[in-house]
């Protein structure tokens, strides 16, 4: 691309005009592309937001004890499974949100600032409960999944 423009700049009398236009294109194209990507991303997130709102609305209307955002997740899953929403529609935003998920809930955990004394005074016991219950859950889930999966995988070969 560049050699062709250079050649044109040499042969045409309006060479000065050609070169700046080329510069403009080279710098503006990525910016425009970036703006387009950003706009698409915002639109994708707005779509996810709307599904979340729909989930919240349905849950509150039905008076069921179920988190609205999980209802939203199930709605999107249903839309994907029925093919109403193609997989690529939310591809970019979903991976971005998943990658930076910690950032969005850190502000809630920061509230621990004022709960510090409760947590510190009971810290050892809380840690014991968390470690023991995680260990029990890990073993139960792992054992059962492995025990039930093994016969099936032996039949395969």
């Amino acid at each position, binding site marked *: 691309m560049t050699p062709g423009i250079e050649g044109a700049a040499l042969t045409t009398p309006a060479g000065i005009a050609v070169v700046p236009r080329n510069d403009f294109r080279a710098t503006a194209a990525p910016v425009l592309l970036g703006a387009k990507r950003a706009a698409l991303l915002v639109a994708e997130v707005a779509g*996810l*937001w709307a*599904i*979340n709102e729909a989930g919240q609305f349905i849950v509150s209307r039905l008076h069921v*004890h*179920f*988190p*609205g*955002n*999980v209802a*939203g*997740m*199930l*709605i*999107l*899953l249903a839309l*994907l*499974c029925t093919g109403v929403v193609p*997989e690529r529609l939310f591809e970019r*935003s*979903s991976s971005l*949100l998943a990658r930076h*998920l*910690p*950032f*969005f*809930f*850190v*502000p*809630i*955990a*920061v*509230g*621990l*600032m004022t*709960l510090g004394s*409760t947590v510190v005074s*009971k810290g050892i*016991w*809380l840690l014991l*409960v*968390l470690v*023991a*219950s*995680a260990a029990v*859950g*890990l*073993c*139960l*889930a*792992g*054992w*059962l*999944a*492995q*025990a*039930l*999966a093994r016969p*099936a*995988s032996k039949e395969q070969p």
Partner: protein
Amino acid sequence: MTGVLTLYGIAVTAGMYALSRRLSRRWPSPFTSPVFFTTCATMVVFLLTRVELSDYAEAKEILTFLLGPATVALAMPLYRNRRLLVANLVPAMAGLIAGALGTMLTAVALAKALGLSRAIVVSISIKSVTAPVAVEIARMIHADPTLTAAFVIVTGMVGVMLGPWLLDRVGIRSPLARGLALGTISHGQGTAQAALESELAGAIASIALGVAAVLTSLVAPLLLPYL
């Protein structure tokens, strides 16, 4: 004045998050993980610069706005790995249900046996769910979202630090079972750890995270009267 403080709160949180991403890349450890480091560092900066929690309320509203859309987006890995779940439906669902219920009941029973307050018992019962869902369930069952978020974060760290070692010790070698256990118990952080072990483990962990969120959402309100 509140506008300035809100901007300051957002800037500190975002700055610490950016720092944590660099730190965790250079020295990978549960203690440099973005969620743990950002929370602690932000609290330290606020304490040093005398920012009150009430000054941060508006920043918190703004920053947590995307939690809802982020939860909806969890449907994507579920959909992408649906065939893996269908192919292993019985072992995956059995392990998932046993693990999710087992960890809930163990946590509640232990916390009660130790004489911890009801507020703590309620918050700790949902500590194995991915954070945005745990916070939403906490609001629903009148648990403390902050306490819940803290328990969720620590559970994620425990799973990453203890999980692979414990699973080795008890002879769980199948990638499917390891991924399932890590995703069910230690949600996002467990899923990241499972993805390091193998692609299959990571995929099943991301399924486990989503299904465990649905399961716990259904069970937590039923368990509430007994807490």
